[in-house]
């Protein structure tokens, strides 16, 4: 007996609903086995992981806060990936944006600078991220160097550059020589949406980015040229689309959005520049973009689900004293289940008779 995958022409509405359920079932099954092997009770673990975070307004708000940078970066990445440009260096573009944006905040700190500071920071951050993203684009267009490698290498360079700045020239003079910049002034801080809590204006920016990206990718000639350039470069060339411009364009968009995400985190939840500003958002966002099938609207729930795996994991560590590694295994299991279930919805598993080649 053999099985074979067959592509389904159109993903049915039911299928879209079935995928997450299937993934959940698979995760629960594997998770339950793992918990029992480790001597933990599965049911309370599942409750703490998935249900409890959704019952509490505070955790729901934290989910959104955690998902915000993932969402922004993943939307940018979807431009690149649709064009078949493998930017895996969003983490570096995030850092570069945060650095250039923070420069405005640090330069104006303690002065009478008005409410223009934050908008200027956002603009500079977008430019910083875009410039950092343009390096691999340039190296690819001009020299044919693989963007996968150069964008990844530039992540480390950006992080070390940030490290140098906060330990050297940008160190807070009143900070006992510890590696952090001054705390940003109120005019250089991303405002909160509500007085209490941590929901900040960056979430609005992310929401706007979703809508704009969905429009550009789905309804404009630019979106079409990106898609065509990615799937059928020759046809795109015949149609008169310039491959180089597409490469520069998608890297610029994705770098700018990653840079925005960077400054929003630094000027929002963190409040100053320091060596550690991202728990790997740039890499997690790759998963978010993939799970979201490069569709801005689907990336929204994908980012939220990823955020849930982190927050549920922390809750399980605190309440159940579950080791961090168990939460990591569980997170990995869940991602694998989601990916697998997603495939089984898009394709049909069919039994075939005989000795067909696998």
């Amino acid at each position, binding site marked *: 007996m053999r099985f074979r995958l067959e592509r389904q022409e159109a993903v049915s509405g039911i299928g879209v609903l079935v995928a997450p359920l299937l993934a959940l079932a698979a995760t629960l099954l594997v998770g339950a086995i793992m918990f029992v092997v480790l001597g933990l009770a599965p049911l309370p673990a599942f409750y703490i992981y998935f249900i409890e975070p959704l019952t509490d307004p*505070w955790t729901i708000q*934290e989910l959104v*806060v*955690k998902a915000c940078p993932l969402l922004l970066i993943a939307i940018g990445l979807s431009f690149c990936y649709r064009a078949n440009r493998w930017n895996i260096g969003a983490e570096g573009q995030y850092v570069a944006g945060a650095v250039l944006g923070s420069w405005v905040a640090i330069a104006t700190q303690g002065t009478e600078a008005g409410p223009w500071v934050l908008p200027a920071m956002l603009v500079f951050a977008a430019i910083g991220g875009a410039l950092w993203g343009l390096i691999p684009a340039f190296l690819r267009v001009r020299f044919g160097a693989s963007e996968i490698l150069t964008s990844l290498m530039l992540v480390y360079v950006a992080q*070390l550059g940030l*490290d*140098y700045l906060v*330990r*050297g*020239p940008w*160190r807070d003079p009143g900070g*006992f*020589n*510890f*590696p*952090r910049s001054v*705390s940003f002034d109120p005019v250089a801080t991303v405002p909160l949406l509500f007085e*209490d809590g*941590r929901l900040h204006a960056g979430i609005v920016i992310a929401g706007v980015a979703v809508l704009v990206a969905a429009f550009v990718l789905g309804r404009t000639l630019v979106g079409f040229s990106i898609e065509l350039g990615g799937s059928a470069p020759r046809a795109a060339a015949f149609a008169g689309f310039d491959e180089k411009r597409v490469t520069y364009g998608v890297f610029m968009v994705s770098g700018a959005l990653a840079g925005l995400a960077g400054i929003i*985190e630094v000027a929002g*939840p*963190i*409040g*100053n520049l*320091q*060596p*550690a*500003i*991202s*728990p790997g958002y740039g890499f997690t966002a790759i998963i978010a973009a993939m799970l979201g099938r490069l569709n801005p609207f689907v990336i929204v729930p994908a980012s939220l689900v990823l955020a849930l795996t*982190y*927050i549920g994991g*922390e*809750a399980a*560590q*605190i*309440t159940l*004293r579950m*080791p*961090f*590694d168990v939460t990591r295994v569980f997170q990995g299991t869940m991602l694998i289940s989601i990916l697998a279930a997603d495939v089984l919805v898009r394709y049909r598993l069919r039994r075939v008779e005989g000795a067909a080649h696998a």
Partner: protein
Amino acid sequence: MRKFISMAVALTAGLVLAAGAPVAHAAEKLKIGFIYVGPVGDFGWSYQHDQGRKAVEKEFGDKVETTFVENVQEGPDAERVIEQLVRAGNTLIFTTSFGFMEPTLKVAKRHPKVMFEHATGYKREKNVATYNAKFHEGRYILGQIAAKVSKTGTVGYIASVPIPEVIAGIDSFMLGAQSVNPNLKIKIVWVNGWFDPAKEADAAKALIDQGADVIAQHTDSPAAMQAAEARGVKAFGQSSNMITFGPKAQLTSIVDNWAPYYIERVKLALDGKWTSTDTWGGLKDGEVQMAPYTNMPDDVKKMAEDTEEAIKSGKLHPFKGPIYKQDGTLVVKEGEVLADKDILSLNWYVKGIDDKVPGQ
């Protein structure tokens, strides 16, 4: 509308509290939360804090309940995790890395009833205490031993990241060494992080290849100790007693021992006498311990023990004058000592170190 909701919440909370209070008082445990920057399996900084947590559990039994979150990055996640610890009912929370300073203060502001303890920071509030350990006291002893034991006259020093604690450690080490041999040379290699075993081993090998026959480290893993053992040179451990990793190499090790401090603070909290303080314990308080002095001649061992006693009794201060900076300017006059606040923000090398402080 918002006002109505908050009133309703307050009312409900009040009812719950009122109903729960008398029962709670009789049986309620003190719930204590810890947040670590690394994995507890690093056998270094976070591992030692977790040893302190276990000592608290052992000391107080069912009067306390502890929990911890490991591997929390010092970025945007920290505030959420600390808040989550509060919401899980922990009323005494230890945040054990410098980068948790701002997040701790933010959460503390929202929860004035919860007690916070932040390690290695300098900002305090009514409900935020700070604590640190005088690791430089131990490093003075290491310097003396190194100067006695080294035959090549060159010691290697593996440093992590240029923060005041690490730079003060280098200075203290060198001052100790110069008190024995003013001509001792030190070679410093920064690995730019706290934890990368293979890189730490590479750094140790590089220093040995350049002629160092004693290796000191201010990084977390036992890799450098193992490299020293393999090459047949001597080394000092860090954070934990690393004698298993260097039975023939380890001279001694500076052991972070947070247990006495944690037990003292938990006791105060249990008795309702906890207040925000700034604690900086050293050898005297048992927060900094020296692993047994091994693999050295008896006279060197005697000298180390005498120095340890002198520091404990207050007769000897590692940063006692005269101390000169690299360019020869006098910073601490004869008969004076460097003030605590200056040690905590130290960013210069003492005379005799032939290198530059990174970022200066």
